């Protein structure tokens, strides 16, 4: 049994207080966003294309600074942290990028092991774990394949394996099942749920795939007109009823 690594006083995994974001001098992409994700929570983020889902996620994985407001992770405001402290926080966050961001000169195995190399772990210590993880996502026979030789779905699975290999406290996934078939999508969702339930990993998944949302009873946050609103109804059955009126009553 593995226990969550959250500090006792981390009563909030992610907190956004009146956060706004704009690029250069353009209008706000996000405006006055408030969000609280409890440790061990599982949430969805939805919204139309261009609504700002990826920008919001970038704020969460500390790739961007908000124009206004404050982003806190694990109870710590990120606005006044040193660069080393920010790096330490990033190590507790796993990210599945929409565009995968795999390093093309590294094999699938080496891409998945990358965060472990960053942590300074020895290859002999993590080899078995990485191979097992790649086998679990169906790439056990493609350990040494380079990303350009992998299909979109395979690349996505490598990206997911890389995001979860360090067993992060927060997992942020941007359209994680966009390039895989429904069966693999379900399997990957099971991986996210398992991380969430067994390790207490806080998971937030940005998607416009309502099929994915239907699989889990979880809060759904929706970005619309630069604002973030929480859908009154949750995912799972509620989402199923919402998209399939025939099920109601």
């Amino acid at each position: 049994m593995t226990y969550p690594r959250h500090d006792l006083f981390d009563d909030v995994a992610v907190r956004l207080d009146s956060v706004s974001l704009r690029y250069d001098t353009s209008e706000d992409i996000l405006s006055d966003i408030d969000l609280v994700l409890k440790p061990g929570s599982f949430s969805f983020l939805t919204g139309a294309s261009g609504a700002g889902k990826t920008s919001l996620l970038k704020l969460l994985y500390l790739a961007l600074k908000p124009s206004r407001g404050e982003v806190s992770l694990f109870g710590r405001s990120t606005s006044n942290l040193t660069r080393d402290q920010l790096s330490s926080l990033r190590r507790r966050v796993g990210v599945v990028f929409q565009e995968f961001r795999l390093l093309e000169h590294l094999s699938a195995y080496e891409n998945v092991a990358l965060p472990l190399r960053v942590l300074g772990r020895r290859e002999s210590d993590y080899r078995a774990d990485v191979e097992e993880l790649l086998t679990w996502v169906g790439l056990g026979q493609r350990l040494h394949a380079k990303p350009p030789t992998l299909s979109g779905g395979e690349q996505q699975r490598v990206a997911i394996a890389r995001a979860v290999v360090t067993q992060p406290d927060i997992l942020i996934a941007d359209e994680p099942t966009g390039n895989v078939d429904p069966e693999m999508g379900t399997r990957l969702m099971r991986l996210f749920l398992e991380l969430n339930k067994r390790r207490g990993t806080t998971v937030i998944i940005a998607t416009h795939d309502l099929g994915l949302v239907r699989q889990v009873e979880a809060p759904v946050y929706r970005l619309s007109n630069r604002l973030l609103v929480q859908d009154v109804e949750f995912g799972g059955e509620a989402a199923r009823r919402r998209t399939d009126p025939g099920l109601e009553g």
Partner: protein
Amino acid sequence: MAKETPLLPVEDVREAALFFVVGALCFLAALAALSAKSTYGAAKSWTAEVQGELTVSLPDVDRRGADEARKIIEQTQGVRTARVLSKDEIDALLEPNFGSRGLPESLPLPQLVAVEADPAVPDMGPTIARNLAEAGIASAVDEHADWAGDVRRVLGVARLTALIAVALLASTAVAVIAFATHAALLARRDIVDVLHLAGARDRFIAGLFERRFWVLGLRAGAVGALMALGASALMIFTVQVHGSRAGLLPELSLDFLDLVILVVTPVIAGFAARFAARMTVIRALKGMM
């Protein structure tokens, strides 16, 4: 599992060009450093030859008077030897000006006394002139100081120029490497971003570039230094073959200090490359959150 693949892929074309540039700069810097060192040696050697040598010119005396003057000079404290030059020796000295047919008998020539004195004794020229004057002998003493001073000044400027060349070449190498690092950083922004978001600290990312450019600087510097060694050896060989007509280059040789310069050049190039890469990457990363 085989050896880990470097996180920074090798950029064959870009790095070959950079290797060539750094190697060429190191070649020129090593040659300039060797030149600075050899001009220092030459200046020391040439000026040392005339240190303590004086020529006393006696316009109003005959050969006998010259001998008397020589005795007075020899008694001066600090004088080691004094010798009156013969007519043939004076003719030989004036041959470049008057030709080899000899001087007209009617041409009045001063008697000359060649003096070798202790270079550590100050004001030897004025002392000799004063002693001769007290004996009623008019004289003019040439200490070769003007010539030695000119030689020292010219070689000093040459040495300074060579050192400025070394400094300029070294700073050019640093600038080139900084530029190349920046280009590599831009070309590999994807890798830097992924590492950064995976929690890599700035020094970890900078270390990747530092190691890459340290090795490149070291290798290119070694090639440049070897080329400089070859060029110097060729020059020395040429001077030795045509030694009789290359009298101005008596000190040209490769000694231990020259070899130290050649060994140190690639190490300095490696450190400069490492430093430039580190500064460039750290500055670029500061622009990221």
